């Protein structure tokens, strides 16, 4: 792990990059990283995020500035700007059931080619996907999902990069921290090694590439 400024970290992300962003309706989202992505105007992003949050909040800021060209998400109904951009074909949107979304990312981070899920069997979502029977039950093959960058927000990070999360701001963050080539983290508090007890570390330090310095 290397501690860097938010400017340095975002400078590493090229325009057109694939980026996973943690958070659920803007809760548990690395806001400082997103503000800097907006400031450096990283365009043409492929965004992988549970939702589109709301305008002005979380990943909603990326839609405010039309920085997203492709989106994989589970629900964008609460962001009218993302909806408009989808309906105007300005962004290509792949809507995925939330349980499938997180398992595809988990698979991507765990060396699996994908997962078999019953969700979506017999619906529009099954179109074009392989259906596989296991013990007589039908499942859809959903392929693994990875990105070049994961932008993660934690409650605590220690000097080594061990991470712990708070309440419902955990959501997709620990799963995404396993599924990207480069993992960049912001934390509410950066604390000395040992403050997070081994049993309470959720994301182990070796998974974190860059920690954004506070202050």
């Amino acid at each position: 792990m290397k501690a860097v400024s938010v400017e340095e970290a975002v400078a590493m992300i090229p325009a057109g990059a694939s980026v996973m962003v943690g958070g659920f309706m803007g809760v548990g989202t690395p806001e400082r990283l997103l503000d800097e992505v907006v400031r450096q105007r990283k365009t043409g992003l492929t965004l992988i995020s549970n939702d589109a949050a709301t305008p002005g909040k979380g990943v909603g800021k990326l839609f405010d500035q039309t920085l997203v060209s492709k989106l994989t998400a589970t629900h964008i109904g609460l962001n009218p700007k993302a909806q408009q951009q989808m309906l105007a074909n300005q962004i290509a949107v792949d809507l995925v059931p939330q349980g499938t979304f997180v398992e595809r990312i988990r698979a991507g981070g765990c060396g699996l080619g994908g997962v078999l899920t019953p969700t979506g069997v017999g619906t529009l979502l099954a179109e074009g996907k392989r259906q596989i029977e296991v013990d007589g039950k039908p499942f859809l093959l959903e392929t693994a999902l990875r990105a070049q960058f994961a932008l993660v927000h934690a409650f605590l990070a220690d000097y080594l990069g061990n991470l712990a999360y708070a309440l419902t701001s955990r959501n997709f963050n620990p799963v995404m921290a396993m599924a990207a080539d480069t993992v960049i983290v912001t934390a509410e508090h950066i604390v000395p090694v040992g403050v997070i007890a081994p049993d309470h570390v959720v994301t182990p330090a070796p998974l974190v590439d860059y920690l954004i310095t506070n202050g």
Partner: protein
Amino acid sequence: MDPQIIIARRVAKELRNGNLVNLGIGIPTLVANYVPSDLKVFFQSENGLIGTGPIPEQGMAHPTLTDAGGRPISALPGASTFDSAMSFGLIRGGHVDVTVLGGLQVDAHGHLANWMIPGKMVPGMGGAMDLVTGAKRVIVAMQHAAKGKSKIVAKCSLPLTSARPVNLVVTDMAVIGFPDGKATLLETAPGLSVGEVLALTEADLAIPDNVPEMRI
């Protein structure tokens, strides 16, 4: 009584001691208000919490404690938090005893459509497809009709949420179950006759000899 409150009160009667319950947005959210205080029910919020409590008092909200719509909530003693993989493992894995969801249409076979209206409303399915596929019991809480048009249809014209049929539909007019896969009128709302319910129901309903009034 307000139609939404009739629905919420009747659904609350379906919950049992110890149940793990996931409530969708809209009418389902109201169900929590009508659970008897002596009943111990665990409510899950799919963004990573079991043990959701009421909206916190003014000034007591915390930005990291929210429901699936991102609104502030509280947590009850004994609550637990987890990531989204665990949350949907609970849902898809059959650990959630009851889910209560809103609906756009339910058909004569119990199939639910509640996630999109092609060309008009494409918000995404969020957790709905996993909930209907994986919860032990699926209850739909919705108005019986919209703009005078029955939402209990012969066959869903909107895209299905899951191939798995729901277990119970509670509306402001009726309770409908699906014994042997056939839509059956189980109860009528207070003051309504079977005939009045059927007049606003597109699907063909089986009518048992005795159809009691909803007790709410």
